[in-house]
């Protein structure tokens, strides 16, 4: 945390100093403290209060009217960790999050490497690879639903043409997961690409020139020069991706609905279902606390080990 030096005037002029001490913005602070009130009130009502309520709800059994019926201690937590659907949800969420994050970064790195090398039409390629940045999860999901639609989707048409047996990927557990990972990597590509492009510009061109003379392949250069040089950015991106992907909701809701057989029922979606379809607030709240713990740990790592994180998200 940085703090500015208190303003001091290095001037012998006594008159000026007197004026200053009377009007010092920094010390004349009582009135300006009210500036914090609007944000604090909103955070209290819509962040801290709900977090406390969620913790309390997670310790109660919910009755049919959605009220806290009786205190059950940690029983809800015991129950969710005995629930095969939640365990599956947790495991599949972790798998999805890590595969997606790693793939996004690898693909974005390769694209950024291709674009930073001296080429004509650089601006065009940069725009093309960054283009997915503004696309919402909902629009992306609709585009992928269309591509993989079992009757009209182009991917399916292609699969049929090459003689694949299973063409409706949405009904197979790995197929549904595959579509979610693919759409997610695609969506996240623009952001990762732009960040890596920025980082790559800090790697001196001469390193590559030497490697070129030594006869290193592109892969070798990327692996031995680029990756070590930009490792802070890679780590930052990895943590940011993980935090974002853990909250994946939209794509699940629109593309798979958590299916087939709960295979893509990721944690955020499971919480939503238990809360707003089953109205079991106790169970949903304890699941929400598990999600919070995971996100809080990842965010803490982000704050702790990546200096940019606090400022660039």
């Amino acid at each position, binding site marked *: 945390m940085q703090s500015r030096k208190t303003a001091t005037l290095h001037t012998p002029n006594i008159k000026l100093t007197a004026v200053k001490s009377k009007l010092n913005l920094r010390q004349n602070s009582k009135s300006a403290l009210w500036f914090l009130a*609007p944000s604090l009130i909103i955070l209290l009502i819509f962040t801290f209060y709900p977090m406390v309520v969620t913790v309390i709800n997670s310790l109660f059994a919910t009755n049919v009217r959605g009220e806290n019926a009786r205190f059950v201690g940690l029983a809800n937590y015991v129950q969710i960790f005995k629930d095969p659907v939640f365990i599956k949800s947790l495991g599949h969420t972790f798998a999805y999050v890590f595969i997606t994050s790693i793939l996004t970064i690898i693909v974005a790195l390769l694209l950024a490497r291709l674009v930073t090398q001296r080429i004509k039409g650089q601006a065009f390629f940069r725009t093309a690879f960054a283009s997915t940045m503004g696309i919402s999860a909902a629009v992306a999901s609709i585009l992928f639903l269309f591509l993989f639609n079992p009757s009209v989707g182009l991917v399916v048409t292609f699969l049929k043409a090459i003689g694949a047996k299973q063409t409706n990927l949405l009904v197979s557990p790995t197929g549904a997961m595959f579509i979610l990972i693919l759409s997610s990597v695609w969506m996240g590509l623009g952001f990762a690409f732009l960040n890596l492009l920025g980082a790559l510009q800090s790697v001196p061109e001469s390193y590559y020139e030497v490697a070129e003379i030594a006869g290193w392949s592109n892969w070798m250069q990327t692996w031995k020069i680029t990756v070590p040089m930009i490792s802070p950015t890679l780590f930052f991106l990895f943590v940011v991706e993980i935090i974002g992907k853990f909250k994946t909701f939209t794509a699940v809701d629109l593309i798979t609905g958590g299916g087939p057989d709960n295979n893509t029922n990721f944690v955020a979606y499971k919480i939503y279902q238990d809360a707003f379809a089953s109205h079991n607030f106790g169970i949903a709240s304890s699941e929400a606390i598990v999600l919070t713990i995971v996100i809080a740990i990842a965010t803490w790592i982000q704050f702790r080990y990546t200096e940019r994180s606090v400022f660039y998200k």
Partner: protein
Amino acid sequence: MTWLKTINRYFWLIFLAVITIAPILLGVWASLLPTADIAAGNFMSTHISLANYIGAIQTTPVLRYITNSFVTSTLITLGELVFCTLAAYVFVFIDFRCKKQLFFVFLITMMLPFEAQIIPNFQTIRSFGWLNSYAGLTIPFFASAFGVFMLRQAFLKIPSELQEYSEILGMNHTRFLMGIVLPYSRSTIVTFVIYMFLTHWNAYLWPLITTFTDAYRPTQVGLKQLQAEDTFSNWGVIMATAILILIPTLIVLIIGQRYFKKGLNVGGAKG
């Protein structure tokens, strides 16, 4: 064999660029084709027209959705800008006891996922009578720790001389904030506005839970509504709607591109 290497590189660049923009291009292409051709798998059809767009505007509430998203995103962005500016100002220009601790309180909110707060927030909004309203869609998002950090970073770059001169001139907080701090941080504020507008334009979970009618439903949830209602799989119209929803985003991004290029690549993983 340098030219061979160059050709190889361009082959990959073009191939990967095509793959990357293919989902969007196919969406645009499909939005121009008659649904009958799409259903028949006739993607090479030459029956290109804007009929799906006219159909989407006439038969679906897409314009209503876009209006709702425009109203909510604008309101949130303005509210956030005011609230975050005020908070960031205090954290940079005012000394007070427990400043570090209070800053930490803001920091903590970034560790708490909104997804874990939806049940109590839903109940709060319901008790305020704000379900299915612009108030419910916007007010909970007026405070943003990330927004405060972003503006704080910009305010920290303001030379301390400027503050000293303002003091000598006898400026009060309001005049210093409006006359010096904000104009000086212009480019960060533009980035802030673009980032926040896009984030809220693309919001999904909260509107899904709190809106029930087309009168308040914003675009992203509206898209789900259309896709779910449409029993005939009218892909042409659905694609046209998706593209219509995408256009404002692209306009904002194109306008903001030169600010993003300055190295402040805000954004983040979408959920």
